């Protein structure tokens, strides 16, 4: 008798986690082999746990607290009025026939054949790891794919939004953007939730040579809401990508931007601001990889942690041998406003190439006493001075959002510039 390998024994022997089992039961029938494969992989993988390195500081308990089934639709809160420069699309209520929409000039939905060919070029990973869990969950849910091709310079801002409202359940969303050579797009991705829901979004972006994407991500959620947002970007040489993300309020939010400069010689700019309070947990796991020389990265991650909030930042930068003359900088700055808040921040630099400039740094501080005193010495009350400083701290990121956030509410901790005393 030949002994089965341990790993396959384990996968047979381990019962499917009840939450996963219930979710898979509640999902509609898989519409293709890819979804089926993802479901098998998810069942084998179970829920992420803190025993796994990439979830070590991030308690995934909030995930299992969400009802395992499709989101029961709820009423949508008010949206900011749409300016002429913005084209808004609800990802959670995509029309059946995308080609019937009046798209901005330069944006066209991909044909079914184009989508199939792209998907075929990206077979799902055979051996899923805990790092892939959010992507796996998303694939298992088999959401409708919004796939768009962008040509030329698109005027205005494309807003892709989801609105879980008070509803409970899992909301899977999926987007593919292909930017042709020299295409230019401003994208604002907005996710909101108030109830016990899990918004799972995966966005894939391909930037051809000379293409430029300015990507904003604004996410606000409730104490029982979970957001798992994955973003994979492939940049050809000469392309430019900037991501400015802002999250607040989620019981658990995990952002996973993954950027690959497939031939180097591209520009990547990442700006993140995560605010945690009460018992919220915000996690950013970013990964930037240079697969060619002369790449450029400018990354700034900011945190405001109050209450018993927890913030996790893991910034991986991968510079293999072929990525000579890479110029990368990563800075993580955390502001601790409470003794009970906690910040875990970790740069993760894998540098093999020898002719590179890779700077990184991390600071954790409180509001600066000398700044507070300066403002107070001008008659500004302590609380107002603290608010001004806090806003100043956040402003650097807010200013970077495409079209300054399109009127979507910025976190309440940040008073409007014209706020009166």
């Amino acid at each position, binding site marked *: 008798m030949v002994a089965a390998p341990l790993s396959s024994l384990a996968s047979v022997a381990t019962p499917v986690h009840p939450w996963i089992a219930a979710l898979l039961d509640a999902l509609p029938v898989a519409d293709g082999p890819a979804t089926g494969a993802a479901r098998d992989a998810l069942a084998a993988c179970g829920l992420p746990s803190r025993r796994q390195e990439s979830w070590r500081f991030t308690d995934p308990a909030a995930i299992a607290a969400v009802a395992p089934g499709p989101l029961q639709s709820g009423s949508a809160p008010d949206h900011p009025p749409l300016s002429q420069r913005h084209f808004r699309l609800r990802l959670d209520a995509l029309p059946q026939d995308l080609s019937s929409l009046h798209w901005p000039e330069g944006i066209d939905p991909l044909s079914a054949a184009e989508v199939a060919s792209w998907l075929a070029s990206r077979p799902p990973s055979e051996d899923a790891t805990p790092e892939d869990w959010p992507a796996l969950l998303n694939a298992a849910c088999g959401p409708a794919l919004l796939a768009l091709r962008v040509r030329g310079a698109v005027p205005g801002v494309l807003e892709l939004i989801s609105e879980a409202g008070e509803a409970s359940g899992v909301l899977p969303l999926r987007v593919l953007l292909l930017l042709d050579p020299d295409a230019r797009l401003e994208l604002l991705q907005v996710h909101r939730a108030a109830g016990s829901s899990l918004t799972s979004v995966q966005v894939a972006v391909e930037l051809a040579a000379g293409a430029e994407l300015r990507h904003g991500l604004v996410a606000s959620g409730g104490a029982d809401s979970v957001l798992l947002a994955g973003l994979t970007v492939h940049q050809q040489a000469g392309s430019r990508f900037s991501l400015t993300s802002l999250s607040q309020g989620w019981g658990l939010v995990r952002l996973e931007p993954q950027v690959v400069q497939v031939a180097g010689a591209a520009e990547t700019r990442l700006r993140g601001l995560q605010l945690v309070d009460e018992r919220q947990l915000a996690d950013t796991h970013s990964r930037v990889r240079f697969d060619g020389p002369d790449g450029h990265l400018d990354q700034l991650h900011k945190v405001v942690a109050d209450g018993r909030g927890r913030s996790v930042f893991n910034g991986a930068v991968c510079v293999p041998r072929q990525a000579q003359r890479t110029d990368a900088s990563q800075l993580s700055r955390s502001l601790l406003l409470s003794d009970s808040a906690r910040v875990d921040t970790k740069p993760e630099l894998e540098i093999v190439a020898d002719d590179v400039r890779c700077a990184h740094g991390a600071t954790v501080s409180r509001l600066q006493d000398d700044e507070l*005193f300066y403002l107070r*010495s*001008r008659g*500004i009350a302590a609380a107002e001075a603290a608010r001004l400083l806090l806003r100043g701290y956040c402003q650097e990121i807010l200013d970077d959002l495409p079209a300054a956030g399109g009127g979507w509410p910025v976190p309440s901790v940040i008073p409007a510039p014209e706020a009166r005393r």
Partner: protein
Amino acid sequence: MIRPDAPVLLNIRDLRASVADQPILHGVNLTLRAGEIHAVMGRNGSGKSTLSKVLAGHPAYTVTGGSVTYRGADLLELDPEQRARIGLFLGFQYPVEIPGVSNLEFLRVATNARRQEQGQEELDTFAFEDLVHERLQVVQMDPAFLERSVNEGFSGGEKKRNEILQMALLEPLVAILDETDSGLDIDALRIVAGGVNHLASPDNATLLITHYQRLLDAITPDYVHVMAHGRILRTGGKELALELEQRGYDWVDAEPALVELA
């Protein structure tokens, strides 16, 4: 301008203070009447800057004895913001850079805090812009600095001009200027000193804290005090500053007997 009958604005009596349990001030006595310009001189570590910070209410400094009254009321029991609102101003030796906070908004919030205390209407953004452009002329400052973050990337001279601009907007009754001349070239010094002279009036008092005579060439003090070891050891007219310039500070230390007279 010395007028014996002018009202006392600030009265410091036997003031003692420490920072991080280290005693710095060992009994400072000083009286400022309306219309007067005082200069406090002394070498590094003499306690000059500590005096200014204690008066402004810096939380890192602990008053361990003595009293300070401002127009007859106890100053030391007030928060820093309250001291500013009732008319005390500290011009910082090292004005603080505050990234992300617009200088214009900072100036407006500060000005309105002071105005509210005086029972005046708060200024909206438009009215305030008119006011601030008028006051910019006092220090010949480029309006572009209003659009920047508070002091961020300002040169030394620009920071000091911004301090005097704040003074021009807040119209304090007692202005304490801590080494306002440090880091200034000749032209900037002339402009800043011109601003201070312009703002001095029979109704307010100015306390200049400085190392050097050169500021006092541009702003004529009514009194010069020499500080050492946390006390004011000598008081005289403007000629005392010239004497210090010529003889240095050593002779002050060498005359400890004067301590008892101070």
